[in-house]
């Protein structure tokens, strides 16, 4: 009887072999870039197969590094192909731009996100902010948001040090970590709404 | 320890001089005197020296210091009977040194030398195979324990001849005027050394003397065993002369062929390592 883990591993490795076969046959750079993104998925599957809390902790950094490489490669692709044009148009709905509703709706979402805290909370609060930015057609202050993200990340890391060196203050550390990741995820996701258009105009 | 260091520098340079002499005699040339490399150091150290205007100064000078330092470290590892892994690491790092020499000056000749050194990266893998086969046979990588193993079971040269051949080829690929010395072939003036003149070049030659001594010494220690000093030096000389014969009788390969041949050798060595691993 084959164990479930071995079966899963076999299937994931088979997928990996398929992707690599495709990668070796493909010569168009853009398509290869897309295929490489597909390589990430079986690799995450292999990590996920571990099936413990640790696996969850391992997937996140793996995913982050993968996405970082992906972004860097896409940027180089744009540079080397000389593709400089970016979409100019934005969502412009005058009714929404003038109304108060988006403000209220996003306020509700942000408040609910803060109540939830952590990853999910960050996601929901970010949704509210994205909605606000898109509806108002506003340009968010990138530098300010980046600074906020950086500080909250430092808070998150600091919380981990509290866990390691002063475990008796765990409640404080949990709160700090939850708050840190909330702000971090919120800010990072809300940048997605503002990444269009000319950079730094 | 200081005595060994000085001996290594002088004897290594002497070996390189003998290398040139033997090659010359095989090719029916008179050849330079055998202490030519020692004279070279003296000559270069008495030249006016500066750092080229286009060079990346810190790297240009720093790489000379690093070159001498890593091979001093390698010699100390061999003397102390330390880990073969460290020796292997230092050997691979010599590639970075060549790269640094070539690229730091901005000269196209040096750059080509450095890039050629980088593309012949396959030449290190036989050493790794040799190291891992030794580990499989003796169960250790510390040189003194390997020597003790040989005292009990006979020299590794007889137990694992292909590993010895692999290391021999590794030493060959670092010898000047050999089939694989594309990094300093004459169409690149002097390859990666082109722009290092005066005392920088003298420092590099000190490193070369040390390197030759360390590699040959490690070969004798690892594959034959502990010997009295005079016999060790004699055996090193014998191995060097055999290397000189190979260098004198083979043409320098083109960069492409050199890399291809090194890749084929690497492939064969890997197959051998797998066979040994399965058998033991």
């Amino acid at each position, binding site marked *: 009887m084959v164990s479930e883990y071995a079966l899963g591993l076999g299937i994931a490795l088979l997928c990996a072999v398929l992707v690599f076969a495709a990668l070796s046959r493909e010569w168009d750079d853009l398509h290869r870039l897309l295929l490489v993104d597909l390589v990430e998925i079986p690799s995450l599957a292999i990590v996920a197969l571990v099936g413990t809390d640790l696996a969850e902790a391992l997937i996140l950094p793996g995913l982050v590094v993968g996405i970082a490489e992906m972004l860097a490669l896409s940027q180089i692709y744009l540079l080397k192909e000389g593709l400089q044009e970016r979409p100019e148009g934005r969502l412009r709905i005058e009714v929404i731009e003038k109304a108060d509703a988006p403000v209220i709706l996003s306020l509700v979402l942000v408040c609910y996100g803060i109540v939830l805290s952590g990853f999910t909370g960050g996601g929901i609060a970010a949704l509210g902010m994205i909605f606000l930015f898109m509806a108002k057609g506003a340009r968010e202050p990138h530098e300010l948001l980046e600074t906020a993200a950086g500080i909250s990340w430092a808070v998150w890391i600091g919380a981990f040090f509290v866990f390691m060196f002063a475990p008796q203050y765990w409640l404080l550390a949990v709160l700090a970590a939850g708050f840190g990741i909330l702000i971090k995820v919120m800010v990072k996701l809300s940048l997605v709404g503002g990444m269009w258009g000319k950079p730094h105009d | *320890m200081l005595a060994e260091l000085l001996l290594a520098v002088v004897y290594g340079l002497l070996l390189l001089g003998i290398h040139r002499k033997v090659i010359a005699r095989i090719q029916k040339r008179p050849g330079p005197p055998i202490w030519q490399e020692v004279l070279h150091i003296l000559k270069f*150290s*008495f030249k*006016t020296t500066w750092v080229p205007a286009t060079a990346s100064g810190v790297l240009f000078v720093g790489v000379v210091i690093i070159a001498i330092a890593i091979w001093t470290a390698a010699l100390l590892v061999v003397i102390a009977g330390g880990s073969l892994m460290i020796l292997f690491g230092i050997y691979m790092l010599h590639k970075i040194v060549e790269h640094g020499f070539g690229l730091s000056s901005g000269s196209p000749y040096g750059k080509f030398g450095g890039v050629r050194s980088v593309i012949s990266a396959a030449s290190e893998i036989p050493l790794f195979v040799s190291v891992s086969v030794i580990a499989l046979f003796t169960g250790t990588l510390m040189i003194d324990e390997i020597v003790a193993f040989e005292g009990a079971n006979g020299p590794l040269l007889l137990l694992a001849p292909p590993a010895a051949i692999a290391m021999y080829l590794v030493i060959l690929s670092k010898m000047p005027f050999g089939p694989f010395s594309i990094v300093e072939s004459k169409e690149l003036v002097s390859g990666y050394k082109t722009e290092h003149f005066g005392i920088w070049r*003298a420092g590099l030659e000190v490193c070369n003397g040390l390197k030759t001594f360390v590699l040959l010494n490690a070969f004798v220690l690892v594959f034959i065993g502990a010997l009295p000093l005079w016999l060790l030096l004699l055996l090193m000389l014998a191995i060097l002369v055999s290397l000189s014969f190979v260098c004198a009788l083979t043409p320098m390969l083109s960069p492409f062929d050199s890399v291809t041949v090194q890749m084929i050798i690497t492939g064969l060595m890997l197959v051998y390592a797998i066979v040994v691993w399965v058998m033991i």
Partner: protein
Amino acid sequence: MMARKQKMAILALLSGSVCLLAGVLHTIGTFDLVAAGIVLIIAFPAFVLSLFALWMAGEHAGDIPFMGY
């Protein structure tokens, strides 16, 4: 401002005596091989280069300037 020759002489003397000291201390058994080795790895390249530089350093300023390519 010290002359280049003098600077190199000091450096060579210093690194040379450090090398010698490490070697001697190792021989009489005060230093173990690792400690002496680390000292030697740092001091020996410095000694070699400063010694070479000492030989040819001009006693007064005014090297031939490099004119560029």
